[in-house]
């Protein structure tokens, strides 16, 4: 849908924030969307229960990459507790596009959040509805 590709999204896609890796991350976690093979890896530096730094790498569509860019921007500097509580609704708000009616694209948008939560909780995988 054209609607997905707003300026705002495209800007994050073309000029991603926090793209890259960390040398000594406290947590490093990677998730794959098996429906399309997209991958997001997050390197997170935690100090005093606060996310001091976070970087994302991987490959995927504009939606998943823009979502990772926005999420990392939003979450950096927050406490781990706050990050754990960050909901999928908040992320979708941030992205600002009506993804709820497209299950496939929703998965793209939520991939980075899934990676974040699985990483912070230290679990292997996470279902969409647990976000």
């Amino acid at each position, binding site marked *: 849908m054209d609607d997905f590709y707003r300026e705002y999204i495209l800007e994050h896609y073309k000029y991603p924030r926090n793209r890259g890796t960390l040398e000594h991350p406290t947590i490093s976690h990677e998730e794959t969307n098996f429906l399309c093979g997209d991958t997001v890896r997050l390197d997170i530096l935690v100090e005093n229960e606060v996310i001091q730094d976070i970087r994302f790498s991987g490959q995927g569509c504009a939606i998943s990459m823009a979502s990772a860019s926005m999420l990392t921007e939003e979450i950096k500097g927050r406490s781990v507790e706050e990050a754990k509580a960050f909901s999928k609704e908040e992320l979708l708000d941030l992205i600002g596009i009506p993804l709820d009616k*497209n299950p496939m694209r929703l998965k793209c948008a939520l991939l980075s959040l899934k990676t974040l939560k699985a990483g912070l909780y230290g679990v292997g995988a996470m279902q969409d509805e647990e976000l």
Partner: protein
Amino acid sequence: MKNAVQTFPIFDVLTLRRDFPILHQQVHGNLLAFLDTAASSQRPMQVIECLRDYYSRCHANVHRGVYKLSEEATLAYERSRGKVAHLIGAASPREVIFTRNATEAINLVAYAWGSANVREGDRILLTMMEHHSNIVPWQMLAQRVGAHLDYVRFDGEGRLVLEDLDHLLTERTKMVAVVHQSNALGTVNPVPEIARRAHEVGALMLVDGAQSVPHMPVNVQELGCDFLAASGHKMCGPTGIGFLWGQRHILDAMPPFLGGGSMIKVVETDTSTYADVPVRFEAGTPAIAEAIALGTAIDYLNGVGLEKIHHYEHELTAYALDRLGQVGGVTIHGPHTVEARGGTLIFTMEGIHPHDIASILDGEGIAVRAGHHCTQLLHRVLGVPATTRASFYLYNIPEEVDRLVAGLEKVKKLLE
């Protein structure tokens, strides 16, 4: 017999019948009296229109498409899974797997769960009133792994002999698979009690709900079972769709059944990683339109109310038991009262073959079934190779019972 109709004012059956186009046709010059719902029900216009609408407006393959049609088809398909879950009181739609029919649902358990959990010397407990679809898959499993089958008997009133559980349920029993409502005798079995007993020895409990889910409120939590199987075509839905419900943690631990598209995460040359439930058990392109139309059928049944349908069928069955019982030479097999029984009854007529009964009734426009109704063990217990079966649903009326009785009198005149 307009009067008779008014004796069961649970819902307005004559108005409701208008939803079923097939019921308004003539067969051999008589209005069709369809008394074979136990084999397969008829469908309301709403379900037929749903199929038409789906194919005319929104068909596409599900799950992987990012374009609008596929999106809509996927949402409708998953919404239907939710309707099934809600209907049977499942904890989550993820516990519902779409299959072709109840038969495939039971085979899925026998193959996927069975092969992983049943070992040589283990036992599977069935009853003598099971449908072949709840016997043969277990026989095949037993033969594959070297397990054994046991059977609970039923008594002269068509009730399970629960005392049999005392010696048949042992530590070796891994599965108890029981029909909820018999498609022949009409008996409704005490599933919660049997499930409790099964769990006491560590066995799982599968309920064959092919004949109960369409006709009464069924709640898997109240039944206390681990698996439930049913068929869409017996509950106002299309052919080609049915479902298996299973406890989430049991499904999660089960290996897949059919392999193919959708049910995988990663495929490599020698091995694959499988998707989560329920998709793990839905290989290939599912019966999309059929699943969606099953959702519409469930909406329809909920609209009338399953409690009401059940009540109405009780009234009709009581009437039929009474009227048929008065036809000379007719023997009804199964419970003679409506307590814990559904609207399906089998009978024999002294010296007259069921095929002749069904053929002659067909000449009167009355559709009943003759044969063993996929319950040969049950018929062997009854001591007859075949019976005639009349079965009712929300669209049947007392007048059809009267026509059945008149038809049987004609049979006697012709063949005696």
